[in-house]
C-alpha cells in the first residue's frame, strides 16, 4: 500500500535521508531500525508531510502524496504518532481524541471509535476529562496512539513508542502493537530497541547514516547483521557490518 522510492530529505543544509526506498504491504507490521541519527524519524516525517521530500516519491495505493501538506496526508489515511508522544498537554483527553478524529469526523462513527478506544485503553476512559499533561508517560503514549487511531488510519506510523517508558510499560506498548496488527492495522514502526522490535515485526529495514543498509525478515536480519555492532558502534565509521 505504501511505496517509498529513492527518498531524499533534509533539515536545511543537513541532509538526513538520502535515497531510501521501502514498501509496506496491507496488514503488515514493518520496522525501521537504526541508531540515533540514522534517519528513521526523518523518513516518517517525510512520509507524513511534516518535512517536504527534496527528491523521490511517496506513493499510497499508487497515488503520489510526496508533495502534500500534512493535513492532506492524514486525510488520505496515514497517521503519525510523533516521537515524544506530543499530546496536547493543555487539552483534556477528550479534546485530544476529538482532534484525532478531525480528519474524518462523523458523529456516529466518533462515538463508536471512542468506545473502541476505551476497550483498548481503559485508562483513557477513567481520565477522559483530565488534562493530557497530567497523564503519566505511558498513559500519554497510549493517548497519542489512540488519538492517531481516531482518524481510522490505513497506515499507522509509530515513532519510538517505547522511548522513555519503564520496562513494564514498554511491554504493554509492544503488546498493544501486536493487538493492533491482529485487528488488521498496517503499521510502520520506528524503534531503537531492535531486539524487541524484531520479535514482533514481519519485516524490517535497517538504516545507517541516512541510507538503507539492509532489508529483510527478522530471521534474515538476525542472521546477517551484527546488531550489537550497529547499536554499540562496533565500526569506526559508524556504519554497520553486514555479514553475507
Amino acid at each position, binding site marked *: 500500500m505504501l511505496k517509498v522510492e529513492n527518498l531524499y530529505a533534509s533539515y536545511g543544509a543537513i541532509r538526513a535521508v538520502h535515497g531510501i526506498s521501502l514498501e509496506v504491504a496491507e496488514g503488515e507490521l514493518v520496522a525501521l531500525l537504526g541508531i540515533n541519527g540514522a534517519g528513521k524519524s526523518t523518513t516518517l516525517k517525510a512520509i507524513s508531510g511534516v518535512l517536504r521530500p527534496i527528491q523521490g516519491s511517496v506513493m499510497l495505493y499508487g497515488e503520489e502524496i510526496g508533495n502534500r501538506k*500534512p493535513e492532506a496526508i492524514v486525510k488520505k489515511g496515514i497517521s503519525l504518532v510523533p516521537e515524544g508522544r506530543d499530546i496536547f498537554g493543555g*487539552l483534556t483527553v477528550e479534546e485530544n481524541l476529538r482532534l484525532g478524529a478531525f480528519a474524518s469526523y462523523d458523529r456516529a462513527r466518533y462515538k463508536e471509535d471512542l468506545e473502541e478506544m476505551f476497550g483498548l485503553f481503559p485508562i483513557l476512559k477513567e481520565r477522559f476529562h483530565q488534562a493530557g499533561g497530567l497523564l503519566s508517560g505511558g498513559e500519554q503514549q497510549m493517548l497519542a496512539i489512540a488519538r492517531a487511531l481516531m482518524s481510522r488510519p490505513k497506515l499507522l506510523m509509530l515513532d519510538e513508542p517505547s522511548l522513555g517508558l519503564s520496562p513494564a510499560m514498554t511491554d504493554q506498548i509492544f503488546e498493544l502493537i501486536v493487538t493492533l496488527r491482529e485487528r488488521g492495522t498496517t503499521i510502520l514502526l520506528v524503534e531503537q530497541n531492535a531486539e524487541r522490535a524484531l520479535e514482533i515485526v514481519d519485516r524490517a529495514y535497517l538504516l545507517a547514516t541516512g541510507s538503507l543498509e539492509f532489508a529483510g525478515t527478522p530471521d534474515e536480519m538476525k542472521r546477517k547483521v551484527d546488531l550489537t555492532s550497529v547499536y554499540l558502534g562496533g565500526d569506526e565509521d559508524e556504519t554497520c557490518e553486514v555479514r553475507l
Partner: protein
Amino acid sequence: MIDLEFAINTISLGSLYALLALGLVFVYGILKLINFAYGEYIMIAGYAMYVLGGFGYVPWYVTLLAAVLFAALVSYTTELVAFRPVRTKSMTAMLVTSFAVSIFLQNFVLITVSPRARAVKFPPVFSQTLTIAGATVPVRNLLIIGSTVVLLTLLTIVMKKTVLGIAMRAAADKFTTTRLMGVPANLVISATFIISGFLAGVVSVFWVSRSASVDPLTGSMPLLIAFIATVLGGMHSLQGAVIGGFVYGLLFNLLSIMLPATMISYRDAFMFVIVILFLLFRPEGIWRKGYTEERVG
C-alpha cells in the same frame, strides 16, 4: 476614594484593555508574531464608522456592526495578502511585514481621506450618564462592561466547545502536531486573524467614541496598551491577556487618583516604570501557565 464610581470605571477600563490585549495575544499564540498592524484594524474600523455615519441615513447600530465586521475583514485580508506568503520564512520577515502592513494602512487613509482627524458621529447614548446608588457613571462604560462579558463568554464557548476552538488551542501549543491531526494550518491562522480583527473592531467602537474622532494614528495608542497589558499579564495564554488588561486598567486608574495633581502628566512614565519592573522581575507575566514557543513553519 475607592467607591462604586471608581470600581465601575476601573472595571470598564480594564474590560476594554482586556479585549484589546486578547486580540493581540490571539495571533501571538498561534504565529508567535506580535502583530504591529493590530492597532490599524482599530483605526480602520474608526474610518468605517466615519464613512458610514457620513451618509446620514444608515442607522447607528448598522454602522457600528458594519465597522466591527469590517475590522475583522481587513485583519483577514492582511493575513491572506501580507502574512501568508512570508509565514514559512523567518520570524524577522513576519515582523517586518507587520510594520509594512501598519504603515500601508496608515498611509492609505492618509491619502484617501485626510491626514487630519475626522469627526465620527455616535448615538447620544454614548455620551449620557447614569446614576447608580449615588455614583454617576457614563453609559458608555456600562456598555463596555456588558460587551466584554458577552464577548468573553462567547469566546470561552467557542474555544472550549467547538472543534475549531479546540484546534486553535492545540495549534497555539503544538502547531505541527495539530496539522498531523488533519487540521488545515490556513484555517486555524485565518480564524485567529478574524477573531483578532473582530476584537479590534469592538474596541474601536468604544475607543473612538471617547474622542468621537479618528485620525491615521488612532491605532498607535491602543497597540501600545495592548502590548503593555500582555507584558503584565503574560503573552502565553488568553487568560494572561485578560488579566493583564484588567491589571493595566486598575493600575492606570489608581495612578490617576493617587498621584498629586502636579504629577498627573507623568502618569504614563509611572506606568512604564511598572512595566520595566515586570520585565526585570517577572518577565513571563502574572499568568505563568501557557503554551510553548514553537514557531509556525
